[in-house]
């Protein structure tokens, strides 16, 4: 039977975060100048318009970079568990990982040569 004590840190964290948010909002309101405009009052002020067609033009470079990012990010996901048990697995796993990375490197090299990493 779990006691209330066990959930005490979570409760503390919850209270702390609420207090913090309230505090910051109130302080900035008290001390900061307040000159609202349409653009400023929009949510996600620095981003795109929140309302409008979902499909819209986007520089394709974003996609390229994003795809490459995911590709090489996944690489890390594979490497992490491998690294944890590396000592137990030994040489065989090392070779496997070298092959894996080599294949990824081929892709990386390809992307590089093709100019996929250049912004302009």
């Amino acid at each position, binding site marked *: 039977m779990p006691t209330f004590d066990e959930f005490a840190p979570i409760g503390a964290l919850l209270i702390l975060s609420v207090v913090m948010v309230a505090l910051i909002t109130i302080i900035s309101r008290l001390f900061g100048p307040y000159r609202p405009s349409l653009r400023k009052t929009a949510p996600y002020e620095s981003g795109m318009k929140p309302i409008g067609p979902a499909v819209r033009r986007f520089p394709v470079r974003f996609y390229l970079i994003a795809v490459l990012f995911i590709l090489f990010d996944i690489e890390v996901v594979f490497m992490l568990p491998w690294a944890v048990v590396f000592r*137990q*697995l*030994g040489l*065989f*796993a090392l070779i496997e990982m070298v092959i894996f990375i080599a294949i990824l490197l*081929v892709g990386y090299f*390809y992307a590089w040569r093709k100019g996929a990493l250049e912004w302009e």
Partner: protein
Amino acid sequence: MQLPSLSELNLGLTVPALSLALWACILLVIDLFIPRDRKSVTAWLAAGGVVFAFIANLLVYRDPGVAFMGLFVADEFAGFLNIVVLLTAFIAILMSVDYLKRTGIERGEYYVLLLMTTSGIMFMNSANDLAVVFIALELLSIPLYVLAAFRAPEERSEEAGLKYFILGAFASAFFVFGAALIYGATGSSSLPVIVDAVGRALAGEGSSLLLLLMGSGLILAGLGFKVAVVPFHMWTPDVYEGAPTPVTAFMSVGAKVGGFAALLRILLVALPALTVAEGDAVAGWQTATWVVAALTLILGNIVAISQTNIKRLLAYSSIAHAGYVLMAVAAAGTPGVSDQATRAALIYLMAYMFTNLGAFAVAMAIEKDDGSGTSLDDFKGLGRSRPLLAAIMAVFMLSLTGIPLTAGFVGKWVVFQATIEAGLYTLAVIGVLTSVISAFYYVRVIVNMFLEDGEGDPAAAATPYVQWAIYLTFAGTLVLGIIPSLVTNLSGPVALAVASLVP
């Protein structure tokens, strides 16, 4: 944890498939240093890789074994299908060299992707584990998605690639779901292990029979999509029409080979005894394959009649041919016939490979640079302007119809034989009747070529490599048709290998 030593992996057996994948990676890098106007070098390097894999495959062919701790099996079944696939890849490369050049889409990645997908099919042929099947399936599919869209920014090609990708992913999901259900029911993804679990399930130990049946149905659907059988076929005409012609040719044969290889192996190695209750004579999936095959035959052949574009016509015809192979699969569900039926399927695939590739090669020879010229009307008068080409095309059409002395006849003959042997008389009758229907649209091509007036296309570009492809497939069609014993004997032990290689 007990890890295998290198020698235990039996890497030698995997050389044909692995070498191709590896070569694809290396070629990707090499290609970067080949100037734009000399991309045919890449083509020949890729072809060299295929030839190497072919030779390696021949060496492995008669020496069956298991590699990667049972994940990968190199038996004669796989060897035979590898031959078919590698020939397909080789012919596709021959067809591509000039085609890419004249349609302005000559890029080295094309050949790399082709090698990738070929190796994927080869892994598929050898996969002995549901997980490997899935990985091979993706290795097969993803390059094909790209290849289908290779003619971008041409709209139809982009559309083809996208459609194929979305629906392919959808179908893959079904496959994975099916594999997961079977894993859940049996506790293993290894096909030979699943067999035992199925036996236990039938004996009433555990209540996993429902999961097994559902799993097999979903796998049938997932692979059925790859081989384009009704009702999982709808992407086929659009994709076949939109994709560059050599890709279509490759897809229509290669993807089917891989799909059927996996289907046959899963159904015959893992689920041969999967019945509703212990003691049933035939496998539980027979009825489903039966129905799908019948639907495929009827729909594929009937809809093909109203097609006016040769690539669409061949797309529907390829659907219909998948139906004939599926007839063999259905027949394999009857115990005792499975060997014969497997053999029939393999022979059919090889016959179909030669004939269909040839037909596509001819279609390509008269296709114009902008992708037009693929209407059936463009064949009018070809008999006069290009008599040899037209005559060869006529042979291909007759072979697709299944006229004796062509490979197509041999294929149909063995398939019908197996179907009748299995007692599926209605299916056999449907098969025969639909072959008769198919004659209608195949013969129409011949009629257009020889009996209709038209200027033909004097500029029809059968460049040397394409001509080689045509001659090669023509020779294959005739040799198979005239000396069927060549393959009927060759694949004699093949079917046995499926059963006997279970560790």
